């Protein structure tokens, strides 16, 4: 049994403009000690999904189940959830400055977190643990730095403090929501390194939410690609990059400058994502998809196994047979090239 099993999650928000259907039927599993990467653009529902699981989306209408450690997190009371958050599920967010209290020393904040959940830990023990944790995430001079305030740390160091805090009680699951987005690449490398090391050492499962496919390629074991509140494709890391099925995944990869080094034109995905207030009734990607045909507009495709691979699923009406999908690719590529040429002439 997987550590976390999310099934058919729906999240809706009431806003002045109407009901926003932020998440529309998302299912995934996270295995012990593995990293699940969730990738998607702004507004795809990737953060809302995980925040809902941990009870952080107040006022949302939630449906579905999220089984973690024998309980359904979506049915749990706030008391029960508090006993899970921080102890069994650690969380880190994008912006480490707003996640830390500016007026308290970081050591105090870590101690507080430990003592809030474990009443039998003495102050001295908690402090020793705080120093140990800061050392563990690679903060030099942990013994003295423990008494510093958040503003005295750089962005990368603050994110390490957040990781230290999230890992304080050895959670089974760490939810990292864009943990390195605000950081420079060299600092990002340091932080990813720390996360990987801790995972190896403690066997923590990680849900890594990011829009950066480079981070996914480096960290994830399995990947889900989200778009407009739905899972578009779900596969192992290698399959997502080398044998993807869904046109959205294909489009995302093709629009990366790195995949198409210097010179040549990038292949952007035309248009922009649909509004989640009135989501289209068919496939949400249909309006931007070069492969689109009538059925896509009429009917939303289910997430189904493709390429005869049990762990590879895609929500697309295109054939799940490898050879036929390749033929589709060829056809569209030729059409796109032709269109580009015509544009050049005009």
């Amino acid at each position, binding site marked *: 049994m997987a550590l976390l099993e999310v099934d058919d999650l729906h999240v809706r928000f009431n806003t002045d403009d109407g009901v926003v259907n932020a998440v529309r039927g998302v299912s995934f599993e996270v295995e012990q000690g593995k990293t699940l990467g969730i990738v998607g*653009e702004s507004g795809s529902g990737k953060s809302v999904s995980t925040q809902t699981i941990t009870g952080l989306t107040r006022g949302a209408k939630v449906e579905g189940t999220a089984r973690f450690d024998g309980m359904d997190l979506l049915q749990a009371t706030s008391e029960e959830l508090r006993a899970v958050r921080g102890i069994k599920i650690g969380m880190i967010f994008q912006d480490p400055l707003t996640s830390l209290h500016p007026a308290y020393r970081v050591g105090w904040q870590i101690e507080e977190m430990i003592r809030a959940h474990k009443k039998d830990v003495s102050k001295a023990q908690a402090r020793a643990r705080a120093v140990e944790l800061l050392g563990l995430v690679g903060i030099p001079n*942990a013994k003295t730095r423990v008494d510093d305030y958040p503003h005295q740390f750089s*962005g990368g160091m603050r994110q390490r403090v957040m990781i230290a805090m999230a890992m304080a009680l050895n959670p089974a699951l760490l939810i990292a929501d864009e943990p390195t987005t605000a950081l420079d*690449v*060299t600092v990002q490398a340091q932080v990813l390194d720390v996360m990987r090391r801790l995972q190896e050492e403690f066997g923590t499962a990680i849900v890594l939410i990011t829009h950066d496919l480079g981070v996914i390629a480096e960290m994830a074991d399995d990947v889900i690609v989200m778009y407009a509140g739905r899972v578009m494709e779900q596969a192992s890391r290698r399959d997502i990059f080398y044998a993807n099925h869904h046109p959205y995944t294909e489009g995302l990869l093709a629009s*990366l400058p790195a995949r198409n080094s210097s010179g040549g034109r*990038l292949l952007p*995905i035309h248009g922009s994502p649909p509004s989640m207030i009135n989501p289209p009734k068919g496939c949400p990607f249909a309006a931007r998809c070069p492969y689109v045909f009538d059925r896509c507009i009429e009917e939303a495709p289910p997430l189904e196994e493709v390429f005869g691979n049990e762990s590879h699923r895609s929500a697309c009406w295109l054939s799940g047979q490898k050879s036929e999908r390749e033929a589709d690719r060829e056809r569209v590529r030729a059409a796109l090239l032709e269109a580009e040429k015509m544009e050049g002439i005009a």
Partner: protein
Amino acid sequence: MTTTGTEPLLRVQNVKKHFPVRSSSLFNRDKLFLKAVDDVSLEVYPGETLGLVGETGCGKSTLARCVTRLYDLTAGTVEFGGQDISTMSRGELRPVRREMQMIFQDPYGSLNPRRRVGSIIGDAFQIHKIDDSKGQKRRVQELMELVGLNPEHYNRFPAEFSGGQRQRIGVARALALKPKLIVCDEPVSALDVSIQAQVINLLDDLQKEFGLTYIFISHDLSVVRHVSDRIAVMYLGKVVETAPSEELFEVSRHPYTRSLLSALPPADPDAAEQRERIVLVGDIPSPIFPPEGCRFHTRCPKARLDCAEHVPPTVPAFDDPPDHVMACLHPLKQDDELSDFTPEVADSEILVEATLQDAIEEPKP
């Protein structure tokens, strides 16, 4: 892009920008300076794209604002089209400003939310008193069409556009006066990848059509690699290496360039597993008290004793072509691996970290 023989459009020589900061100690009344840009020289040739990369706080945005004279310089000269603009007054700068424009990172913050798109783009015509209002509207709508916006949206407010479309408004505004040089300060950093590609292609098309010259600032190396003809790498207020893009990615000489490039996770699992990853130790030092000698020596695996004493000159390494220059006393050979070296300077953070790691006890589970 060949650069030999042509006169540069922009020549930056020994530019410094120091910001005064308040001294932290009550008893030490000496004025302190944050050396955001410290002795930078570079050239930009007509029709090319110069990429400027570096991490937060390396001075790349400050340099851009010095070049466009949004800041006054502390020292050095900026020549634009053969004309020294470094000490010009606001009035003297006005005609120059027509020819150099900027595009900013934040498509939300850089457009006035209370003004209609038409008047935001048309501002430049107002300021420079070009055309009557009827002619202006036509020109603005032409610009909107040029950047892929619907000209009928002339009267809309910025809030009615998506992030990518807003960035197109920013591009249209920069293009209004047909500038020669556009300084793009992180123009696609706030956009999703699929939208990012649309804007990059747009900038590319406009460059071809109007022969524009770009200075393209970004922290995203793969974007810079894609758009730039040449790239300058900055660290702590200095340019450490400049080279044609592909050459920089193939044979980087400066250890900082090498570590920066290695830190970029490629969107490719095989490449991710194979690459040499150099994880830099520690943080970027304070630009108020930058390290003596080479500024990177405190974090450089290859630092030697002389690195802490001498400021390295900017020259080609080994028998590199003259357009590939770097500032390192001990440049890397192509097959050198940074991880094979150990620093020899006393104030190396790498050595400090190593002793600390040894001291940490085995963590209790």
